[in-house]
């Protein structure tokens, strides 16, 4: 439906391959490799082709592809969250919903305003919007891919049956979006959870490591939220500035074609310069978006997942303590001691299991985070440098030509 996707086949090619796993540093494991080899935008749906390469015995083939939609990703994520066995792990955050509405709306508006601008302006605007659409599209694909890669790289989650079905079953999983009732339930669940979180957080942790992690994550989450919002704003205003370059360029072009004096060449040259720097500025904005905003956004979600993990642990700690109390009571009354004992033991086991894996998960989280930040910040700096240098080169070349003329 989008003309912008006519050139679809190669839109994930070349440099954009580099998008993969940008936010998580994953050791590539030959045993299970997952990527999204293609994606198709159909009306309000995006269809991802999930491609798997594996030497694991539970798959029938070594290499296969299936078509999945966003809802199926969400289903997979939710199945992880609901699985009690995974309570001790940071569940990789679900990819955000594809949102092309804004971009589509703009494209539509452009169609309406077609009469009011010149042909060049229209083509330019159209190209610009299509590029914007494509960028959002690529980003969406990348986010979904990151989720799968994270799961595939996780020592426990990669063995999940649902995950395997998701990867292998070559038909529609016939999951549906949540209906209103379910959404409402989710909402209440969340309410209860956050209320419970407040109660649970009042409990002093026996373990210093977790106590520290908890305070850290609470603060970190808020800060990263703030930073990602600000960085978003920054890249957006950078984008509008770049768009202004575009308009200036076309105005200068019009001046250049109409002016009677010999300054017309000058105008044309400067217009060309603005067109080129516009592209660079747009790239700067896009790269900042990719390397900075997306990184922060990812860690916003990841830190939320880590917080959830801590919540689950605290919850089981509280359960464990309650079970202890119940056991004491039962012993005092000498009633139902056995039942209380088993439940206490269960709680204890559960808590210990969570604590054990959670500790490792949190350490992993930090390693992952540091590595991802390092990678992205280095790349950001390099790209900024590259663009600034390119920009400078353009400006200097143009100035040399202009000064030579005058």
């Amino acid at each position: 439906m989008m003309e912008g996707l006519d050139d679809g086949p190669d839109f994930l090619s070349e440099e954009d391959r580099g998008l993969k796993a940008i936010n998580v540093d994953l050791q590539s494991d030959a045993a299970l490799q997952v990527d999204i080899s293609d994606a198709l935008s159909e009306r309000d749906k995006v269809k991802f082709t999930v491609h798997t390469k594996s030497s694991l015995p539970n798959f029938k083939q070594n290499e296969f592809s299936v078509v999945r939609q966003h809802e199926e990703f969400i289903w997979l994520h939710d199945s992880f969250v609901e699985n009690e066995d995974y309570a001790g792990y940071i569940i990789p955050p679900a990819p955000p919903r594809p949102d092309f509405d804004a971009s589509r709306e703009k494209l539509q508006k452009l169609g309406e305003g077609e009469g009011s601008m010149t042909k060049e302006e229209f083509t330019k605007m159209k190209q610009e919007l299509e590029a914007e659409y494509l960028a959002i599209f690529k980003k969406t694909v990348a986010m979904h891919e990151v989720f799968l890669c994270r799961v595939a790289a996780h020592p426990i989650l990669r063995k999940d049956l649902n995950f395997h079905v998701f990867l292998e079953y070559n038909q529609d999983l016939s999951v549906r979006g949540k209906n209103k009732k379910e959404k409402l339930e989710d909402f209440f669940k969340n309410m209860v959870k956050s209320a419970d979180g407040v109660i649970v957080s009042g409990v002093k942790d026996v373990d210093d490591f977790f106590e520290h992690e908890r305070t850290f994550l609470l603060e970190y989450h808020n800060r990263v939220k703030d930073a990602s919002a600000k960085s978003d704003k920054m890249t957006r205003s950078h984008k509008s500035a770049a768009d202004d370059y575009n308009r200036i360029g076309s105005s200068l072009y019009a001046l250049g074609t109409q002016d009677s004096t010999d300054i017309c060449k000058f105008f044309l040259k400067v217009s060309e310069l603005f067109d080129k720097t516009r592209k660079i500025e747009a790239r700067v904005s896009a790269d900042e978006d990719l390397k900075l905003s997306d990184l922060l956004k990812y860690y916003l979600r990841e830190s939320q997942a880590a917080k959830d993990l801590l919540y689950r642990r605290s919850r089981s700690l509280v359960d464990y303590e309650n079970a202890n109390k119940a056991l004491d009571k039962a012993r005092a009354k000498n009633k139902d001691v056995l039942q209380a004992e088993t439940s206490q033991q269960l709680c204890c086991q559960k808590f210990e299991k969570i604590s054990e894996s959670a500790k490792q998960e949190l350490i992993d989280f930090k390693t992952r985070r540091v590595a991802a930040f390092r990678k992205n910040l280095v790349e950001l700096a390099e790209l900024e440098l590259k663009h600034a240098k390119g920009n400078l080169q353009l400006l200097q070349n143009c100035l040399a030509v202009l000064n030579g003329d005058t």
Partner: protein
Amino acid sequence: MSNDLRRCFSWERRDTLCERKSFTNQSKQGFRHHGVITLCRKHRPLDLLGNLQYLATLDMESVVAAVDCSWPVPSICMVSREKGDDNPANAHHCRCRGSQETTASLSGSRNLGFHGEWTLVFDEEPGVQKALEVLAACRADLHSLPVSAHLGLFSQSSPSSPEPASLPAEDVTANSNGPKPAEVVLEDDREDLFAEATEEVSLDSPEREPVLSSEPSPAVTPVTPTALIAPRIESKSMSAPVIFDRSREEIEEEANGDIFDIEIGVSDPEKVGDGMNAYMAYRVTTKTSLSMFSKSEFSVKRRFSDFLGLHSKLASKYLHVGYIVPPAPEKSIVGMTKVKVGKEDSSSTEFVEKRRAALERYLQRTVKHPTLLQDPDLRQFLESSELPRAVNTQALSGAGILRMVTKAADAVNKMTIKMNESDAWFEEKQQQFENLDQQLRKLHASVEALVCHRKELSANTAAFAKSAAMLGNSEDHTALSRALSQLAEVEEKIDQLHQEQAFADFYMFSELLSDYIRLIAAVKGVFDHRMKCWQKWEDAQITLLKKRETEAKMMVANKPDKIQQAKNEIREWEAKVQQGERDFEQISKTIRKEVGRFEKERVKDFKTVIIKYLESLVQTQQQLIKYWEAFLPEAKAIA
């Protein structure tokens, strides 16, 4: 005679506004000598009066025609003017001459001996028949009518206005028809504009003429036809442009290279006074080696209205002869009020700085003009420590409103003049400037948007820098925390960079464009003046044609005494046509030269400023490279 009377002329009325203005000035140009009658019943008496007055000024017969069509005529005015009174300040008054002449020739009397305008007012509703009778009577013997004179001095109170300052009128009221001064009719609509002075003068006989002609009204000061389009200024400085007239060519020849060793700076804005009477004073420093200045370096204190005063003086002297006078910066009531209220916030400092820069550019542009540089007013502005306070520059004064009214009237006038352009160069140039204006406006809007977005970007970058610093604080990995703090620092510096670039965007690029948008308005202004000149010339031609027709009629009727009179008139009008042509040629020539100069300046200006602007972009990018290069090892150090 009745055949004569009943001959119907057709008149074209273009615009009601025009009509309404017929008492003040120029609107008579709105009527042409061909087309359709559109005067009709719905016209208010005042409008009709104006129209009739106008008709009367052109041709007696037309008035009759008007009456003949049985409109409800409350009063009929005939404005006439003494022969040879050629006040250039009142182009429309010149057109009034026809009436008296027509009247005179019809009544068979040569010199009526009146100065100024004459208005015959038939104030009661005379009905068609009565009006005809009266008209017939005045044709028969205008001379012998018992008259009382009523002198009304209408003055627009704005001397700085390029429009004629006053409109004197003397009304001769036919007693028998109920003497009622025309002003009474006028006042209900126009008193705000004309309230200045109304004076009753008894005028029974021609002997009073010396008294009248010495009436201290600038508009009736006799000026020889040669000065028709000479700079229109107060009599004090009258001599100055006359001198230029001779040397102008030479000056411009010399100045072909446009190299003047004169540098002007506007600096040290300083608030003087308190409250709403406060104003900003600027130091104007001139450095020059030109011999016309007594010192090589001097400075004066000037306030904003002085700059406006300078501009209006220069504009009134040079604009209408075809010189492109650089426009002064615009007034800004909001901005100035902020400054006056005295909030020392960034927006008011920004406003003052913006204005200072604009004033500096204004003066620099003005002294670059070879002719304007020679002007005594400019010299006085630059040199003299005491400057007469500029009046009527306030935006919210009576004069300001009057200016607006005049402007509106001018705009309407412009629409009504249909000039068949014979000069392809002018046609092309006008179109070019029209296009240029549009393109520049568009570009200006985009650059303004860029400035706005860049400022936004700067603010957002600053906000992100803060957030990044906070994130760095809470990060528990030491190296990462350090890198984030470094990132925050880099972003802070980049914020500064964006801010500076936004200033450059504004002061170099955006202001250049807005200056040129206003300059182009000035260029359009001289084109309009050329059109007015052409109009005047054409009117003279038409009148001449009519005079010739009259002469032919007289020849047929065989009235030797009248033939002589007609011949005299033809000679007089021939001279005027010639003068009009000369004036038109002159203004066209000046404009060609001026436009050439303007274009040269424009090309130079755009080139230098845009190159400077690009250099500012280069600097920004260089700084960016420096900052990110410094950051890169920090990012790599995360481990």
